[in-house]
């Protein structure tokens, strides 16, 4: 187990270095970030000034040296300043992370509330109308593009019936209304996956000897399902739920764009167009850390919850 943990940590380290290096190099191959400040060709800045900026940003050194300088500063908790507003990248990212995490949490709740119970229902009442409804829901979730779902939801619930706001996130007060549509759009796909996982796990468990035994000794129907069945069937869906949450944080770019949600995804989109590379590299770092970290925790939790699983490598 310790060996497994050590291996995974080394793996995360390599992933972080690989991903940030890749984006770092790419963004530096793009157009000169100094062009953000002055029009092309350098009008409005003297040659000395231009050179001076280059020196401040470290462009006079080879690319790989620049990367290691960034890495060194990163380890000390400094991700540099944004090019557009000259503010610390860490602060900017932290400011947006909250909004993104809240939306991710909303989508997560909706995915679990729908996915797990309906997965159980669909397995217990196999081939009933509930089963078909649940499976249709799952199939739709896997085939519907999130951005289109978002647009349709806005069209129906905001434009047509004026029931829910079409986007944005109110500051200060917590308004549930603003979370409903984006959460549904973001979480449907994951809800579908959870439903499938729960259903197949549940079917497997319900078919096992100890469930048959529990039934034959006279345990009541739903008690068998919830106590004996679900506990054993839910291991896989629950551990995958962590990865799903990480996926929501790193993968809600599209939904944030559709619902004009002021989160990390929108920050990223804006930074891409201005080539604000300190933000881009910082975002990659945060994304990879979150994603790999959650997957790591999920793996460990998996081994803990289910003693039958022990990692060899």
């Amino acid at each position, binding site marked *: 187990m310790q060996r497994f943990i050590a291996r995974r940590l080394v793996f995360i380290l390599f992933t972080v270095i690989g991903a940030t290096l890749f984006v770092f190099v790419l963004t530096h191959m793009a157009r000169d970030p100094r062009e953000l400040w002055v029009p092309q060709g350098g009008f409005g800045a003297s040659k000395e000034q231009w050179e001076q900026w280059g020196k401040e940003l470290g462009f006079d050194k080879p690319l790989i040296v620049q990367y290691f300088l960034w890495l060194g500063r990163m380890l000390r908790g400094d991700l540099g300043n944004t090019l557009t507003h000259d503010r610390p990248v860490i602060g900017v990212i932290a400011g947006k992370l909250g909004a993104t995490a809240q939306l991710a949490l909303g989508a997560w709740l909706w995915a679990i509330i729908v996915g797990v119970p309906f997965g159980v229902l669909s397995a217990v009442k196999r081939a009933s109308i509930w089963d078909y409804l649940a499976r249709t829901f799952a199939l739709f979730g896997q085939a519907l593009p999130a951005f289109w779902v978002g647009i349709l939801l806005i069209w129906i619930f905001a434009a047509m019936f004026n029931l829910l706001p079409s986007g944005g996130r109110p500051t200060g007060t917590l308004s549930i209304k603003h979370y409903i549509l984006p959460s549904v759009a973001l979480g449907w796909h994951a809800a579908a996956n959870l439903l499938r996982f729960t259903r197949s796990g549940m079917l497997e468990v319900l078919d096992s000897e100890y469930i048959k035994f529990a039934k034959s000794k006279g345990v009541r129907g739903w008690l068998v399902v919830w106590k004996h069945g679900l506990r054993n069937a839910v291991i896989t869906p629950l551990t995958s739920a962590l990865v799903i949450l990480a996926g929501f944080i790193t993968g809600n770019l599209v939904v944030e764009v559709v619902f004009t949600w002021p989160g990390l995804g929108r920050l990223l989109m804006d930074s891409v167009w201005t080539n604000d590379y300190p933000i881009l590299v910082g975002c990659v770092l945060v994304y*990879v850390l979150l994603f790999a970290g959650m997957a790591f925790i999920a793996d460990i939790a998996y081994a803990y919850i289910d003693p039958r699983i022990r990692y060899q490598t």
Partner: protein
Amino acid sequence: MERVGATWSSGARWLVTRPVRAFEFLRRYPLLPAVVLVALVITGIVARIVAPYDPIIGNVRERAVPPMWQDEGSAKHILGTDHVGRDVLSRLLYGAQISLMVAGISVGAGFVVGSTLGVIAGWFGGIIDEIITRFVDMWMATPFLLVALVVALVLGQSLIILLTLLAILAWVGFVRVVRGHTLTFKDSDYIFLAKVAGASTWRILRVHVVPGIINTAVINATLNIGTLIMMEATLSFLGVGIPPPTPSWGGMVSDGRNYLVDAWWQSFFPGLCIFLTVLSLQFLGDWLRDYLDPRLRQLM
């Protein structure tokens, strides 16, 4: 067909009513998805002939004409026109062409590269396997959308770059399944006997391993095309996919976003196309998996 027939009759006890039976039949045999996909491929190929209008140049005097069944709609534009007067149906047809082409080429490239690496990793093991597997793991932990955005920004928006991006998204899946499958073959008796009989490594791979993994790879390809179409649409929606004015479904949804209240058809139909295509591919992939490889049969 014998096997499928057998499961059909054993499953028949679940079927009580006729509508359910019809539904079950359609679920068991991918008739609808096949029809949808074949129609899609054909319209994609003959888009140039059947499309009533030019997909790129619109008529500005016929902006936002509703679909023909609405009051102000006309039979000239069956699905209406968009905000610059381009015929939605024509754009959808050309969009099918480009979507299928992009997904097909990238899945093909992923198929070849991924399967080859998968066989190599599974067969030779050791340090080669370690390197390939670790690289795949690393790639899977990297947020693809972000990488795609940055690449599109740096190298510009073009079809070639999009294809490359999607191909490198596709290949990792192949490596995983093919490697796993190769590993199960490796220790089997017939491979051992082939070695005893003096077959060369190349011959064993070609005659005994590759035919065994090809089904797995085909299933994975079918299930993957849907994901790739979805990713292409997402990238186009964000404005870094297929460069405009070439019509793409994702781009069309994005274009129509701002005109949702007055011209819903502009966003609705391309999204519906993505949905139906991906859904059909999903059905077909699931069916193919059950048909070609019953061992992979899921309870779903």
